[in-house]
């Protein structure tokens, strides 16, 4: 085992972990505020990648602009869906929301397959992030380092927003007791729409980051979302930092499994999930309700 290979897998693990983290954060926010287990998160990730590819092809919009515009477009898509469809399944029972968003995942995916075909489309790495740094023992591709760094930054910014700002305080309150928060004069339904848009925008952002690494295809989200759900189960809902730490660690565990026992790499996270469920059903960072 060369250190180069090991380090390479560490980086791949961290990248996957970053995507898990961005999607898991969005899931936690949406579940906390709306009580919806949003399976469609995978479709919003895919849409984020597609929107950037589409803008580049048709309007020549570059990667850096897409990094801002694509998540905004995904947020807009999310807001429209929440306003017209998702709000109908709010309630104490989580099953209707789960089924509805599974349907949305399949429909959004189907629409993209119908329009663009199931072919994977390459997305060029932006010039400034081509190449890498040769540290003699390992080669560090710039784009991969960038992906991990900017993901962690966005996760931290999300944590700061929710824990340290007044809008974040109101979100936490609406999460805990929506009825009383409304009685204080807060427009909680609007806040829920915002929360859904924000949560799916995080997935869209991950999609833009993923576009140059993997190819852009309509089915790219569905594989990811299943793993992300396992990650969320391991980490438990409720703690932002917990979700980020769990995501990155599981990404790395998965990466190393590829080196040492590749056959198990696709199931290692699910095995960990089962073990965690046996010992701590609320997840590593979750609290029992």
């Amino acid at each position, binding site marked *: 085992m060369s250190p180069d290979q090991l380090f390479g897998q560490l980086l791949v693990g961290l990248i996957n972990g970053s995507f898990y983290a961005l999607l898991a954060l969005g899931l936690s926010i949406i579940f906390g505020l709306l009580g919806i287990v949003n399976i469609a998160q995978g479709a919003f990730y895919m849409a984020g990648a597609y929107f950037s590819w589409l803008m580049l092809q048709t309007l020549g919009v570059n990667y850096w602009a897409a990094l801002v515009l694509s998540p905004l477009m995904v947020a807009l898509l999310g807001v429209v869906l929440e306003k017209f469809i998702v709000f109908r399944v709010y309630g104490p029972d989580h099953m209707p929301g789960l089924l509805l968003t599974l349907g949305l995942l399949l429909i959004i995916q189907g629409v993209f397959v119908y329009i663009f075909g199931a072919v994977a489309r390459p997305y060029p790495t932006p010039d400034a992030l081509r190449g890498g740094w040769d540290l003699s023992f390992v080669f560090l591709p710039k784009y991969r380092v960038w992906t991990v760094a900017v993901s962690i930054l966005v996760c931290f910014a999300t944590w700061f927003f929710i824990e340290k700002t007044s809008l974040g305080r*109101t979100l936490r*309150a609406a999460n*805990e007791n929506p009825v009383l928060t409304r009685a*204080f004069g807060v427009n909680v339904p609007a806040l829920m729409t915002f929360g859904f848009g924000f949560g799916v925008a995080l997935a869209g952002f991950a999609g833009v980051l993923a576009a140059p690494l993997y190819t852009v295809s309509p089915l790219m989200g569905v594989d990811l979302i299943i793993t992300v759900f396992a990650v969320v189960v391991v980490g438990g809902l409720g703690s932002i930092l917990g979700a980020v730490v769990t995501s990155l660690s599981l990404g790395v565990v998965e990466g190393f499994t590829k080196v040492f026992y590749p056959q198990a790499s696709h199931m290692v996270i699910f095995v960990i999930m089962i073990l965690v469920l046996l010992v701590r059903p609320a997840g590593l960072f979750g609290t029992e309700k």
Partner: protein
Amino acid sequence: MTEPLIKIVDLHARYGSSHVLHGVHLDVGKGEIATIVGRNGAGKSTTLRAIMGILRSRTGSIRIAGQETIAAPSEHIAWLGVGYVPEERGIFASLSVADNLLLPPIVAAGGMSIEEIHALFPNLRERGRSPGTKLSGGEQQMLAIARVLRTGASLLLLDEPTEGLAPAIVQRIRLAIDAMKARGQTVLLVEQNLRFAVKVADRHYVMENGRIVDVMDRAEVATKMERLQRHLGV
């Protein structure tokens, strides 16, 4: 004569299929302190929840500051200048004491500053960083009251603020209600503690089985204490 700050006419309310309020008539003028007294289950808390729009299935008329609110969503009612202190206090576990205090939006100018609130409830200053639900029961009640003093609300709905609290804390809460009166705020207080109610209020509405069955002014209370106690079954 000007219209009272809150005027309730023929209010009916339901929890699911059970009809809880059967035509409540009640009004409180600006700057007045009124109580709703009555036995458990008479509909006192329900009346406050219906005013606040938390209980949605209600009919009749509730006019606040001249506006009809019977069909308004809860968040609009708050912006008419209504502050609500629920019976269960409603302190947020996921927010610190300071964040609980800052949570409700300022709905009108003229609310208390944080300094004034800390002067009224010194305990809250010291415990600012603890999670809201780590406070004692009495401190949670002070926090729940302090929270609506900051917002500039002109009508305060207090649901059993002295329930289960030690005399020293009840005294603090009385000071807070005196401060509300001094600031010209209007208070509608649900209270089981008759001794407390007669000390602070200008008027008492007696509620039974979802209706107001008697009204007494402060001056009448002394002579009609026996009647009041009979209503409450004490």
